[in-house]
Structures are given as structure tokens and as C-alpha cells.
């Protein structure tokens, strides 16, 4: 006898099981390893643990080395003037304020476009279409988009937004290009987050007389929010540091932007130009340090926001 889809009870059960396991894990942590025979003493076991440990350490070490190296060379450059003044002599003198503003602005424009589009697509794919073909095509498109190198996005943005749509080198062109670039990430992470919401939330909501849209906005999205925020944060991280996609589309102007049609130079482009054209290596490191600190700050802010969000809801 085939049982009805809800009778397997797999949704929700796992989630709560996880919570319970979690609590037990914490309260009985001290009992670990006691009582059970230990199988961890063979040579193969020990070398496997050693290799995995080494892999984990080297992954963290690479990250740590890069951050320390950049900050070591860059931090001495960080003065109030460096952060709050416009550059002069092509960046050899003065500060990098326009590039900080340019980076934040172009990323913001990109996300303002990408978030509604990406989250909307994910909601449609998970909640509204049951057509496997449509889902597969859109998903395949998103995957392909994710695999394209950013320089190709830059070229596309240049030809399409800058030239064809006559937007010129501008915040808008750069933002649209970044949006196209981070869209797959937002779609996929949002999709996964929505799919992880137990079916029972939707059923209860519908059984209380809610419409489908109310169910999505009030029962599904709030639960999926931490996952969606993670995707958005990954996208911000990618967009903030992006060079190739914006150098062709946002331009490299050192003036402060005045509108969405102003050209801007992002920090990564500034760093690239300073280093590539041999203008000033110390200034290049200073710029890189600000960029690294900004990305770290975004990540910490994201985790803080997410923890607060989760704590408030559960």
C-alpha cells in the first residue's frame, strides 16, 4: 500500500530531532568516549585523522596568511586622511574616499536589483511551479551563470549596458552587471533555504485559512530568512571584491559619484590600477587593507544579524 505523502512524517521530525540531539549533545558531552569500545587507535585511523587535521589547518592558514600579509603592509597607511580624502596625483597622494563610496554604492545598486529578482525566482521555483521542466531549465541557466568567469560578465556589461543601452560607465551599469553575476548565488541559496522549511508550516498555514501568498510571506520566508541572509552575504562578499566585472562597466573615475549615472572606481579597481601601473604600492596595500577589513566587517555583521534573528524567532 502506498502511503500518502504526508504520512512519512519526515518533515519537521528531522528538524526537531536535530534540536533534541543538539541539547543532548550539550548536556551529555562529558560522557563522550566512555563505555563504548574505542576504534580510533589503528594506524589507518590515526593517519586519516592527521591528514584531515592538516587539511583543515592549511585551509585556515592560507586565509590567515593572506589577511595578515595584507594588513601588515596596509595598516600603516590607514590614517584618517587616507580614509576621508579624495586622491590626488592619480592616487599617489591623498586618500581613497571616492573608491570606498564607489564600492559601497555599486554593491548596493547590484543587490537592490539582485535580491528581489533572485528571491522572487526562488519562491516561484519552489512554491509556485510544479513543472519539472521549467524548474530544470531555470536551474540549469542559473548554474551556467554561476560558472561564468567574472571578466565575461564585465565584457557583457560593457557591450550591453554601457554601449548598447547607452548607460555609459556608471554606477547603474556596474550594479546591473554585479546583479547578473550574483543572481545565481541568491537563487540557489534561497531555494535551498525555502526547501528546508518543513512542509508542515505550509500545511498549518493553509489549514488556518491563509492564502498561498500569505503562507509564503508569513510562514515560509521568515523561517527561511537565515538561509536567505547567508546567500545575500555571500553575494555581498563577492560583489564588494569584484574587479573584472566593474572595471569595464562602472569605470575608473576618481570623482565622488553624484547620481546613479556617475562613473565610479571601486576599491578593488583602485588597488589594481595602483599596483598594475606602478603608481604606489604602499597605497595599493592600504586600499587592500580597507577592502579586507570591510569584507570581514560585513561577515561579522551578517553573523551577528543572523544570530539575533534566529534567537528572536526560536
Amino acid at each position, binding site marked *: 500500500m502506498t502511503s500518502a505523502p504526508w504520512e512519512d512524517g519526515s518533515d519537521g521530525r528531522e528538524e526537531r530531532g536535530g534540536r533534541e540531539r543538539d541539547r543532548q549533545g550539550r548536556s551529555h558531552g562529558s560522557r563522550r568516549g566512555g563505555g563504548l569500545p574505542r576504534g580510533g587507535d589503528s594506524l589507518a585511523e590515526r593517519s586519516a585523522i592527521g591528514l584531515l587535521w592538516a587539511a583543515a589547518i592549511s585551509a585556515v592558514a592560507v586565509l590567515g596568511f593572506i589577511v595578515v600579509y595584507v594588513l601588515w603592509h596596509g595598516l600603516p597607511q590607514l590614517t584618517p586622511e587616507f580614509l576621508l580624502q579624495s586622491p590626488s596625483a592619480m592616487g599617489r597622494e591623498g586618500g581613497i574616499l571616492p573608491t570606498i563610496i564607489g564600492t559601497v554604492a555599486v554593491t548596493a545598486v547590484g543587490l537592490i536589483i539582485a535580491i528581489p529578482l533572485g528571491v522572487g525566482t526562488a519562491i516561484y521555483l519552489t512554491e509556485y511551479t510544479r513543472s519539472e521542466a521549467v524548474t530544470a531549465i531555470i536551474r540549469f541557466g542559473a548554474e551556467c551563470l554561476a560558472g561564468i568567469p567574472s571578466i565575461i560578465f564585465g565584457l557583457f556589461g560593457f557591450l550591453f549596458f554601457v554601449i548598447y543601452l547607452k548607460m555609459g560607465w556608471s554606477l547603474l551599469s556596474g550594479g546591473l552587471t554585479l546583479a547578473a553575476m550574483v543572481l545565481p548565488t541568491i537563487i540557489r541559496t534561497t531555494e535551498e533555504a525555502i526547501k528546508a522549511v518543513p512542509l508542515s508550516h505550509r500545511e498549518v*498555514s*493553509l489549514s488556518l485559512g491563509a492564502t498561498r501568498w500569505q503562507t509564503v510571506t508569513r510562514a515560509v520566508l521568515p523561517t527561511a530568512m537565515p538561509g536567505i541572509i547567508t546567500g545575500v552575504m555571500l553575494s555581498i562578499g563577492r560583489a564588494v571584491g569584484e574587479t573584472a566585472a566593474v572595471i569595464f562597466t562602472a569605470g575608473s573615475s576618481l570623482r565622488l559619484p553624484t547620481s546613479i549615472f556617475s562613473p565610479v572606481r571601486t576599491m578593488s579597481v583602485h588597488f589594481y590600477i595602483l599596483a598594475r601601473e606602478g603608481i604606489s604600492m604602499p597605497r595599493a596595500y592600504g586600499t587592500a587593507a580597507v577592502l579586507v577589513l570591510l569584507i570581514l566587517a560585513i561577515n561579522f555583521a551578517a553573523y551577528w544579524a543572523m544570530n539575533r534573528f534566529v534567537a528572536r524567532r526560536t
Partner: protein
Amino acid sequence: MAEFGIVEEYDPLEMKMEVRNVDLFYGQHQALKGITLPFREQRITAIIGPSGCGKSTLLRCLNRMNDTIEGTRVTGHITLDGDDIYAPGTDVRALRRRVGMVFQRPNPFPLSIFDNIAYGPKVNGLKDKERLRHIVRTSLEGAGLWDDLKDRLDGAALDLSLGLQQQLCVARLLATKPEVILLDEPCSALDPISTLHIEELMRELSTQYTVVIVTHNMQQAARASDYTAFMLAGELIEYGTTAKIFTDPDSERTEAYVTGKLHRT
């Protein structure tokens, strides 16, 4: 099913819902076969039977929750106060407000206790804070939870014990002012004490509401219901007062099941 004389036996005035000749298909698979069953007003009707016999499926026909599953087809008639709930143009949202459901696993939203209960009234358009507070209070009182929870309405619903979570789910349902309450194995995840609380609550609710409970626990059906329907492999085998089903059933298969001799078919 006329051989049981169900249709002649009861007074139509006391009937809240009626299922008549209902077949249900999931794609090719027929999950319900010619079910005819009354649900009397302000009485508790239990539907019992082994796993996979279609009892949950039948329950989910009563508020059209099966609509959410692709490829489901229902034929026959199901009426609520005489109106066919599968008639074209039926307002399914209004139906679900009138015929509410408590699910197998306690499933509060990851929201505060207050917001869980206010969910139903809010999605149905109520915004007035004062009235929401009033509804939350009366719903918690109705579910026997007010004294326990009145000081922690802002606390997270998921921090409650499973038993209280299930009672909260009942309270959340009461907030939409239903007429019929469907319970789909509401105690299968609960400990015996919580189970007793839910059974007492059901008895209490049946003074105002029509209650239908699906259960695989025969003691529960025997203790807590007025009428019992026994199902097997998508068919209704027997329907009658709970006393009759458990002490003097007409069908041998019913007797085998209630005495624990029938395990699987």
C-alpha cells in the same frame, strides 16, 4: 454501505458533516473506496484502522487539505451543514476556517506563543490589537493553557514541551473560530500524561465543536470517542457507537482488529 443501516439510523438534524460514496485517487492508486460516514454535531467521532488504511486521507478530505497534493481526485459528496464542500466555487479558505485541523506532530511556527495564536486571525484580515489580545486569551483558555502561559506570551513556542506545543496548536486552531475540529493522530508524538491532557481537552471541546479524531491507538478511541468508524484498505468496515464497536461489533474483521488479532492486511 447501506447494509449497516447508517443512513437510516441517525437524525439528520444532528449531523454536522456527511461523507457519501466518496472515492479518492492519488493518480492511479485508489486510497478511499466508497466511504459513507456521518459526523454528528458536538460529538467525538474516532476513525481507527491500521496504518495506510486511508483514515488520514479521509480526514484530510473534510477540509480539502488533499487539494494541496498533486494528482488527487475525489468523487462523491462531502457536506458541511448540508452544503457540498467539493461543489465548484466553494471558498476553500472559508471552509478551512470552519473545519480546522490539528496535525500529527506538534507544529507551532517558530514564533512567539502570541504570534502563533494570532496567525489565523491575522491571515484572515484582523488587525485590531485589542481584539487580537482578546482572541489569544480566549483561545488559550479554550485549550486549557491560559493559566500556564499567560505570563510568557512573548516566549518562543518551540521552547514548550511537545505536549504543550500540541495544546498550543489546538489553541491556534480555536482562534479561527472553527465549527469542526479534525485531529490527525494528535497524540502519536506525546507521552501518556500529555496524551491524557489532549483527551480531556477533546472532551471539553466536544461541548462546543464537532470533533473528528484519527488514531491508531484503540484505547484512545475507546476512552475518548462517542462514535467509532473502522477502516481497512481504503474501505469503511463498520461504523457505530464506540461502545458497540468495542464490545459487540457486527463485523468479524472489526472484532479481530479491536481485540488485537488483526495486525496487517
